[in-house]
């Protein structure tokens, strides 16, 4: 899961330190609209598309993308939630994590599933999502859409659709906030004080 994402079910309560807004609500809206068009373009229409948001913030992002696709194409495509908790490769290094909700629309088989997440960093959450998806069915193709790609990849994974590339240093944090989950919509970069470097927010997955 991207580094901006708290473990599912936990509120982002840590002191973010000094922060810099890199995308505001308008920017995000424009980025999503562009991504929606790219998705349609790549797929040559809405045919067979399924959006699968990775909880927590990937799910509302997927909903927004679906709305943008509907505005462009006049078709409402199915949106699901794909929880990856039990597929993570770092389960053993944390206390038992609460498991999120998985609800995938019927017919993953032969669909084109677009995984949607807020931040792409190490690529490990995408790896987990691919495994989770594989247990649900056999899509014709899987694509990846992320709002922010901040680099620092640890696995050979690349996003198909990116809202914004944000070069960052490893000790910075990228926080995505969405109205649906956080009460406001923006992307900020914070550089926490050194002693707070071990905050759970720093998980690199």
């Amino acid at each position, binding site marked *: 899961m991207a580094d901006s994402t708290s473990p599912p079910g936990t509120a982002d309560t840590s002191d973010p330190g000094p922060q810099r807004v890199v995308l505001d609500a308008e920017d995000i809206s424009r980025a999503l609209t562009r991504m929606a068009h790219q998705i349609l373009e790549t797929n040559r229409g809405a045919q067979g598309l399924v959006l699968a948001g990775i909880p927590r913030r990937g799910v509302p992002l997927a909903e927004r993308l679906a709305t943008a696709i509907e505005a462009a194409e006049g078709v409402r495509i199915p949106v699901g939630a794909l929880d990856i908790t*039990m597929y993570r490769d770092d389960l053993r290094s944390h206390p038992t*994590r609460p498991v999120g909700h*998985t609800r995938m629309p019927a017919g993953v088989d032969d669909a084109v599933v677009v995984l949607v997440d807020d931040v792409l960093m190490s690529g490990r959450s995408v790896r987990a999502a691919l495994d989770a998806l594989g247990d649900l069915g056999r899509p014709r193709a899987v694509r990846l859409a992320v709002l922010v790609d901040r680099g620092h990849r640890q696995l050979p994974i690349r996003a198909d659709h990116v809202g914004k590339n944000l070069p960052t240093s490893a000790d910075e944090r990228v926080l995505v906030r969405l109205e649906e989950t956080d009460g406001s919509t923006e992307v900020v970069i914070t550089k926490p004080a050194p002693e707070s470097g071990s905050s759970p927010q720093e998980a690199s997955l």
Partner: protein
Amino acid sequence: MRHLLSSADLEPDDVTAILDLAEEMADVQHRSIKKLPALRGRTVVNLFFEDSTRTRSSFEIAGKWLSADVINISAKGSSVSKGESLRDTVLTVAAMGVDALVIRHMTSGAPQQVTGWIDAHVVNAGDGTHEHPTQALLDAFTLRRHFGGDTGSFANRRIAIVGDITHSRVARSNVLLLKKLGALPVLVAPPTLMPSGVDSWDCEVSADLDAVLGGVDAVMMLRVQRERMSGGYFPTPREYTIGYGLTRDRLTALKPGTAICHPGPMNRGLEISADAADAANSLVLDQVTAGVAVRMSVLYQLLGGEDES
């Protein structure tokens, strides 16, 4: 959560977390690939000192669907008669490198004793006439769905538990759990099958099933064990059925929608009539289905995270 020994160990939030996760797990039951990788590399041993095909199978499937390696060890018969102490038996199993021990024992308290001897997580799969907490959890899961979905739906629900309360680990675990969820258990049994000190359990107690039946939201019928029939606890099976069985006639006394539960295996015609067991509002098979999901949830809660030092 380190161990699951008693319903008394669970706070309402724990119960909600277990049941919520069990709902997720229940979905896995309907997938074509019934597998989650969460417990890959974990070893779960079902150490059963007493036969119970259904509970053992339920734990076995639960562990396997979570990708744990599950081994069944039947240690039937008292360890005393075999000359090996319980501690030695358990240490031997634990020495193989076990992450969780699921223990069924004919003697009350055995799982609790085991926690003092080994580091592995311990799940009580039924100990003597003490407790059977996963049964209570699966009953709560089943009833929660029946009542409308959330844990709050238990508030002030009256739930009759009928039969051999004295010897029932299911009854003890259910009373503790239901009370934590805000429900009002009503214990119904002839005085010979009511545990000593039941007055201090802080729940309604009755020897008159008919007086209770019309005012409850669910009835849990307990199995009458064969040995009780010859133990002088009641005169004859016939008299028991007439006094405490959920007969066809008694079905008409239930409020519409009253849930009917039984932990199984059922003695049809004794504590429960075929009409009741197969009634539209009978949840007996739902209970069995819920068993796997609830046990998956419990195993994940115990084994899904880092090892505690």
